[in-house]
């Protein structure tokens, strides 16, 4: 009995030490470098510019009600679908975007963090449609903001900046492809940026301004 107790205490202490290592692990917080000044930017505010949000039952960060549009089937219950309006630099609506998100099977809490895959279709009326593929690391947001503020109810020290993009392109940026219109055939890179200003408990959402920094050779994506 004494031996069993010693083993159990040892296992718990070892697991706790590993938990501390994982929590402070710098390997799981890497992201793409911030874009240079020439990147073109489409931006939106959360939740004001969300046209529609359907979320799977196992993908609810804030424990919100999934409502009528719930993605409840087991094949899509870690998936979310967003409709968004994206503004240009003049803060005028420039595009409508569909964002299909899912947790990534490449998630590795030791080496890569908590990964999400993002598939955007962005249509700029009169210009064409873009497809954006980006992997995002949600671990820095979970560790620094969501868990301490939302679940442990610690004081909010925001606003908080996050650059979550970690691939799949070169330099850990995302990939943007021109599908139709003036963009057809062009290819470039994309990086996301979030500035989270508050977590709204009443509505179960984060209040944030988000930006898509697009580097797409060829036609301009939005007026600068």
């Amino acid at each position, binding site marked *: 009995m004494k031996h069993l107790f010693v*083993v159990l205490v*040892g296992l718990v202490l070892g697991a706790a030490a590993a*938990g501390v290592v994982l929590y402070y692990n710098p390997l799981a917080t890497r992201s793409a470098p911030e874009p240079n000044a020439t990147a073109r930017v489409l931006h939106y505010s959360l939740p004001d510019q969300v046209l529609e949000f359907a979320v799977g039952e196992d993908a609810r960060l804030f424990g919100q009600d999934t409502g009528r549009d719930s993605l409840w089937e087991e094949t*899509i219950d870690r998936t979310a679908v967003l*409709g968004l309006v994206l503004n240009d630099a003049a803060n005028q609506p420039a595009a409508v975007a569909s964002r299909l998100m899912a947790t990534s099977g490449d998630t590795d*809490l030791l080496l890569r963090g908590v990964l999400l895959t993002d598939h955007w279709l962005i249509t700029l009326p*009169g210009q*064409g449609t873009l497809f954006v593929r980006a992997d995002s690391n949600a671990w820095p947001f979970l560790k620094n903001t969501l868990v301490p503020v939302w679940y442990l109810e610690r004081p909010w020290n925001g606003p908080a900046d996050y650059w979550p993009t970690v691939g799949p392109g070169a330099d850990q940026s995302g990939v943007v492809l021109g599908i139709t219109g003036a963009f057809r055939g062009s290819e470039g890179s994309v990086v996301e940026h979030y500035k989270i200003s508050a977590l709204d408990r009443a509505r179960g959402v984060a209040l944030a301004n988000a930006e898509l920094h697009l580097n797409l050779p060829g036609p301009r994506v939005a007026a600068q």
Partner: protein
Amino acid sequence: MKTLFLIAIVCGFGGTLAGAHYVPWLEHARLPSHTSVVANGGRAEQFLIRLPADRIAATDGEAGGLRGTGTEGTMLLPAQFVAEPLLVEHFKVRDAADNVVGVAARHWHGSGAAATTTWSILIPSRGALVLNAFGEPRGALESALRASGYSAGNAWDGRAAVTMISPGELGVVATGTGEFEGLSGSYTEEWTVAAVDENGRISGTIELKTITSQPASLPQ
């Protein structure tokens, strides 16, 4: 006893790190793929959307017609976009065995010389497929329904089938990720409406039939 304690600590430490590294925490449930081989060596796969059950949302612009305004789940466009030839729709997607396997976005855009349609289909356990074609003329579905006897504000049932890719044109696989990465191919899209209720809600199916293959390697 001290040795046992140290071994237990090492095991707890290593086991936790190994679990963090090797356990597939966020993998998606996967159903068998319903594909068949076609004569030229490609792979045929059909995706199905049942309306209204699989419709998640659609934009409410003037270009939407029944598809945009006839049901719940309407995405309210900003005033600047209401008159634009733009229709964005979101759906759940089923495989040929009628199981929901993914989600999809369809963007119809009527600016320029010809309307275009782009589909992004995400099957979480497999990857994403992006399809692109010259799309249907504006109001194509409503025109087909009217030709079959439908009038706005009245319930209708029957059968109206609309091919959503312009005649003589071919839908293409534009790109893909995961299992679909590097594939090329073609697709067809057909909407079949079986009923429309008094509120304009459409009942029917959307069939996407894809044929994909690995591009032939370049000669050395």
